[in-house]
């Protein structure tokens, strides 16, 4: 373990570690982006179509509910393997960043949808009603009431999503996706260089901590209910 503090260690592994960090960050960021592009509308529609929502619609709400629940209860490792053929078909490969992003998005979009749903449900029904009484359309209510009023909570949800996806990327790394998880397996397990594995663990912990504290602070700072 002590070799971690030697320059020889960093000369040998510094490059691949930096690359691993970059891959993990890119995978996480891209997957989060696409997960929100899909999950955010799902969450919004799910809230709007609830029995007491502003656009009640039983069938749509039920179908969305199933999709979100099934998606969320699928263990990521199994989901990834099950999606291999589909991933190969759509992305051209099931390996590397390209191969990892699709299963990551499929796994996290329902997660995002549920987060968004929870955040929006916290918005006071009276405020929604006030907006309706002023003649706001459904779209205006979503854009000018639901989303801004729920923003502090949405940001906290965003940090939980990011952290979950960082965890998924490590699993994806085990089956050839690249990134820190991949390094940990290849060096720690296959080549018997456990110090590389330990360094990746420390880096992952730092990433998670950083995401957590930046987002929490941001959420508090923008929340005007607390002043």
């Amino acid at each position, binding site marked *: 373990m002590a070799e971690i503090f030697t320059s020889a260690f960093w000369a040998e592994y510094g490059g691949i570690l930096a690359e691993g960090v970059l891959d993990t960050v890119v995978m996480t960021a891209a997957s989060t982006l696409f997960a929100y592009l899909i999950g955010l509308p799902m969450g919004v529609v799910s809230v709007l179509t609830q029995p007491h929502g502003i656009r009640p619609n039983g069938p749509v709400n039920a179908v969305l509910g199933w999709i979100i629940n099934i998606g969320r209860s699928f263990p990521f490792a199994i989901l990834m393997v099950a999606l291999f053929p589909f991933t190969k078909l759509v992305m051209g490969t099931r390996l590397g960043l390209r191969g990892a992003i699709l299963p990551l998005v499929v796994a996290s979009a329902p997660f995002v949808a549920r987060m968004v749903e929870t955040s929006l449900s916290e918005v*006071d029904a*009276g*405020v929604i*009603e*006030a*907006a*309706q*009484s*002023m*003649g*706001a*359309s459904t779209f*205006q209510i979503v854009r*000018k*009431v639901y989303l*801004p*009023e729920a*923003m*502090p909570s949405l940001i906290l949800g965003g940090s939980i999503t990011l952290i979950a996806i960082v965890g998924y990327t490590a699993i994806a790394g085990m089956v050839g996706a690249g990134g820190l998880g991949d390094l940990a397996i290849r060096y720690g397990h296959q080549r018997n260089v456990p110090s590389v594995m330990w360094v990746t663990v420390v880096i992952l912990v730092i990433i998670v901590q950083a995401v957590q504290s930046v987002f929490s602070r941001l959420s508090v700072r*923008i*929340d*005007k*209910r*607390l*002043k």
Partner: protein
Amino acid sequence: MSEPIIQIQRLTKNFGGGPDEVHALTDISLDIRQGEIFGIIGLSGAGKSTLVRCMNLLERPTSGTVLVDGKDMTALSEKELRLQRRKITMIFQSFNLLMQRTCLRNVCFPMEIAGVPRPQARKRAEELLDLVGLADKAGAYPSQLSGGQKQRVAVARALATDPKVLLCDEATSALDPTTTVSILELLKDLNAKLGVTVVVITHQMSVIEAICSRVAILDGGTVAELGDVQEIFSHPSTDAARRLVYPGGASVSQYPSGTRAARLSFNGGTVNQPLIASLAIDCGVKVSILGADTRSVGGRATGTMLLSLPDDPNEAARALSYIRSQPYVTVEEVEYRG
């Protein structure tokens, strides 16, 4: 002046269906005149909120029609309804401000919805905040305001689209008596200045008496009585009206019919005026309390009290004029027939 701005015809509203159906409103017909302050009073569950929500169609009537400014709200398309709602805006018991927006941007909100250009909306919002006495709070967030201030912002917001009608659902019920008085004065003032018709929903007699010209008493989803406030409160002819007018459940059989009585309503005066005692000392008139339903919050009294008046007409008149001279108290003689 007396052209109806809201006409409700044979309005019925049921919730749910089958055996659990709730008949919230049954066959309601009433007109609200342009420029008046109209009160709707009733006990909890009487259907007041449902009735007011049927006026802007937040609740769709089961049957019957609601005409606002000549248009049948129930026949409008969704888009037309949204436009029409700018003419009939609403304030609420819990204010319902956007918590993440400043006061100024809260007042801008309905104008954003209506597509008013931003600079114009800001200017109008500033004027409106000034109108409700909160020009200095433009940049504050709702969480930094008192309840009374929040309701003022809500009033400014409700006026942003130049509505013809302002609906107030228990708008003062979450406020202390002093603040209640100030919000009621504001509504009265705006009604006089802007000519906006005001519909006030409340379960408090004192609110009706403070600002309303006409009142509908709602009971079990039907209109029990409808007419001038003075008229109805001095000659209540239904049980529902009597329950409101004779406070504290004063029992009728307790007193001989024909007892002369005065009904006092306290609108936020200080509690420690010993009114009944000073009546005896200053005028030499002894009265007894037939019933009372007064509350004091923060040293200020609201509510109503029913006093029996002496049989001697001179003494009675003296007592009435004495009470009339007191601040924050209104009084009227009622026939206590039971």
